[in-house]
């Protein structure tokens, strides 16, 4: 009964006798914005003593009511109420501030909404706010609706987002995703007119540079051999290990002499793969130490990854630094695992070898070292990076 009366009154405001104040107040507590605004309007219409200041100005008992909207460029348009109320942002403005009921009190829309786009959005709202449509109808409409050029699609996404019209945001986002999907980067850049402002190195940086530096390769080989020896010695005795940060320091070493320099672009793939495969063969033979080996293996990988990341640090972009900073904790995390398995004595050995190597390389490029000192806050050349690294270790553990 109540609902029928309410509906009736909304569409025939003059015949509102079946509703009383109690009903209207109840309706105000409805969760739906749309109905609440409607009821507010009714109250304003028929109970003048309850009207708010702003709305008092222009209430006309018309069949159709309009909302006034003003875009950033100053132009004002009037829109049917149901259509405009479909946008959560407009709805909220009407309820909370009471604007929109007249030309003088038009709702000012966010900057991202220009008149042409507003027209499109209102078309969308006009279709979808009608309750009786089937899902198929809505889908067909949507598919036709988004057929427009990408520039307009982007504007529409932006505008819909500022009006908080989520269904339209999803629709346009999906359409844009479909445009991006399956295209090569050049094609995407052309479609959206994106500037091609990354250097070749930056483009290849994520993965390619891992293998470009011959010094890294040499070091990795050294590591691999060392680790293999350690494993073999491990087999014979049972060792307890304490937490050690030797491997941290060795990472520091890597950081210190990877200057992102003129990487050797020789094809290194075969070497690397051979090395990997050899390691894997060893692993498969040695089943009882499987876990351990995998730990080391993964750390090696991560080590290589780290090298690669910093290798191209010739452009000292913020990204490089931040990525480096966040990457180290993960590496440390692995290292903590590994350290648990290695004998301290062997770690000393390893450490010494690495120091040797570092010294050898450092002596070759003193000038480069100078450059590094200026640019970086993270990398000390000497092997006393413990303090900084330990900080990262603890944060990473905390994250866990």
């Amino acid at each position: 009964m109540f609902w029928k009366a309410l509906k009736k009154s909304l569409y025939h405001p003059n015949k509102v006798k079946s509703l009383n104040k109690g009903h209207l107040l109840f309706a105000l507590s409805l969760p739906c914005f749309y109905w609440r605004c409607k009821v507010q309007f009714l109250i304003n219409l028929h109970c003048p003593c309850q009207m708010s200041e702003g709305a008092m100005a222009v209430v006309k008992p018309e069949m159709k009511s309009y909302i006034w909207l003003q875009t950033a460029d100053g132009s004002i348009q009037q829109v049917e109420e149901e259509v405009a109320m479909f946008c959560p942002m407009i709805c909220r403005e009407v309820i909370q501030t009471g604007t929109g009921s007249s030309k003088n009190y038009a709702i000012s829309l966010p900057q991202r909404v220009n008149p042409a786009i507003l027209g499109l959005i209102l078309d969308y709202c006009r279709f979808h706010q009608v309750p009786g449509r089937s899902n198929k109808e809505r889908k067909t409409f949507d598919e036709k609706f988004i057929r427009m050029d990408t520039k307009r699609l982007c504007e529409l996404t932006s505008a819909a987002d500022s009006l908080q019209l989520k269904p339209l945001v999803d629709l346009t986002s999906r359409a844009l995703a479909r445009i991006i999907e399956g295209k090569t980067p050049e094609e995407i850049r052309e479609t959206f007119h994106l500037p091609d402002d990354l250097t070749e190195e930056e483009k290849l940086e994520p993965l390619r540079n891992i293998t470009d530096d011959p010094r890294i390769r040499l070091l990795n080989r050294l590591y691999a051999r060392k680790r293999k020896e350690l494993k073999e010695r491990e087999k014979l005795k049972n060792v307890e290990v304490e937490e050690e940060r030797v491997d941290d320091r060795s990472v520091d070493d890597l950081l210190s002499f990877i200057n992102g320099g003129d990487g050797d672009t020789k094809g290194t793939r075969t070497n690397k793969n051979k090395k990997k495969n050899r390691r894997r063969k060893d692993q498969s033979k040695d089943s009882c130490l499987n876990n351990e080996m995998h730990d080391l293996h993964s750390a090696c990988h991560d080590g290589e990854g780290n090298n690669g990341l910093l290798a191209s640090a010739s452009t000292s972009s913020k990204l490089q630094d931040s990525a480096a900073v966040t990457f180290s904790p993960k590496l440390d995390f692995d290292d903590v695992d590994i350290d648990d398995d290695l004998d301290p004595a062997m770690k000393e050995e390893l450490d010494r070898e690495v120091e040797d190597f570092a010294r050898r390389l450092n002596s070759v490029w003193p000038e480069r070292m100078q450059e590094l000192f200026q640019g970086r806050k993270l990398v000390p050349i000497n092997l006393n990076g413990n303090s900084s690294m330990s900080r990262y270790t603890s944060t990473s553990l905390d994250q866990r």
Partner: protein
Amino acid sequence: MVRNKKRDRISNLPDHLVSHILSFLTTKEAVATSILSSRWKTLWTLVPSLDLDEDEFEWILSDEKQNRKKKKWDDWDGWVCPSGFTFVQIVSKIWALRNAYPLQKFYLNLLYDCDTIHVDKWVSTAITSDLEELTLNICPNLPFDIPSTLFNYCKTLVDLRLYGNIIVDPPPSSLGFPSLKILHLLGVQYANHDSFSRFLTCCPILEYLCLEVIEMGEECNFIITLPTLKRLDFNMQDFLSRLEINAPALQYLEFVGFLHKVVLLENLSNLVQAVLFVSHDSEENDNEDYGNRVMDFIRALYNVKSLHLDSFTTECLCNVPEFDPPMFHNLAFFNFGFHSSIPHVLPLLLQRAPQLAVLTLNRDKSHLHSTSEQESLKWNFYEYVPKCLSSHLTAFQFKGFKGQKDELELIGHILQMARILKTMTLSSDPSTEKEKIRVLKELVMFPRHSSTCQITFH
């Protein structure tokens, strides 16, 4: 001020919008956008989902493997991308670059080169308080232990799917999954006898459960007592396991597999649809016994609205000595499979389904048995016209129609008796034109009770 005609519009969108757009792409494509321009370099890291699928990449054997004299093509490791990186390297790098931004969805599909250490690292990193969907489809070299943090820190998890050589061991103090609605456990192993039931007690609002039980080597009981469960898909590939289902809210039930051990079904009064694909171990000689078990199973489904029985199931039913199905009071849709000729149990089933509206006969062409063509069915239709035929049947569909004698007889009977039949669709095997014409002629000759009946033939 010179106006550049071609302006980059999409980069004007705020970060959250671009990452929303990228969330509709696969992770591989999203990461690929990082080389578009400087602004796009890190946008992909804001996407709160990761799907790592090895099938999306092209794999070739690494050079060394290719040079080996003996080429084992079913090699499980040594696969690399054409650029030389393994899946593990790529994934590790993605994780590293992503800067631990909150993750809502994590899918991992890794069958080759699957290392438990790496998977453990990735899964442990993915388990955060924001995680909503987790899918692992892996085939690791060693059985993979699910990290126990999964059972304690995933309050927001809604969808969990585990496929593969995974060991599930919920700790006794597990805080559970208060939001979990969908759970798939396919081929997983359970650490203890009570691991499975403990897992279920952790899921108070579970709605969809999909279980595949593989050979465990010992007798296991699967007791499913879930008051909120709406859908259950069960695949029993083990001869020794028992199953008990008590789910008052269950609406959809699918059972595939062996019924060697008794399956107990209780309290299925709300069941709307049931699908049965029973397998039969053809070496078993206790056909009658097995048939009885299938019959018992079906008896518990008496309240169902839609029933689908495949050809093996109906074959088992044919072995039941005294076939006495229950009354299916609500049955409106019936999909009946068979292999060579229409089983004799069909008419009786039709009699027990007074409200049947849609009947579908499905010839299973994959069936290997070749029984001789049966003689025409001895149906006493003239004595007992199934009530459904005369008052409710509106659609009849026959897939795999061959034009055999018994089939034509059945169709003839139906056409004669179905008063409100609207459509009859016959889809046939590719047969010769001659055959088709002969069959069509016969069909046309049948008297039809229903005046609005339309026969479609393809």
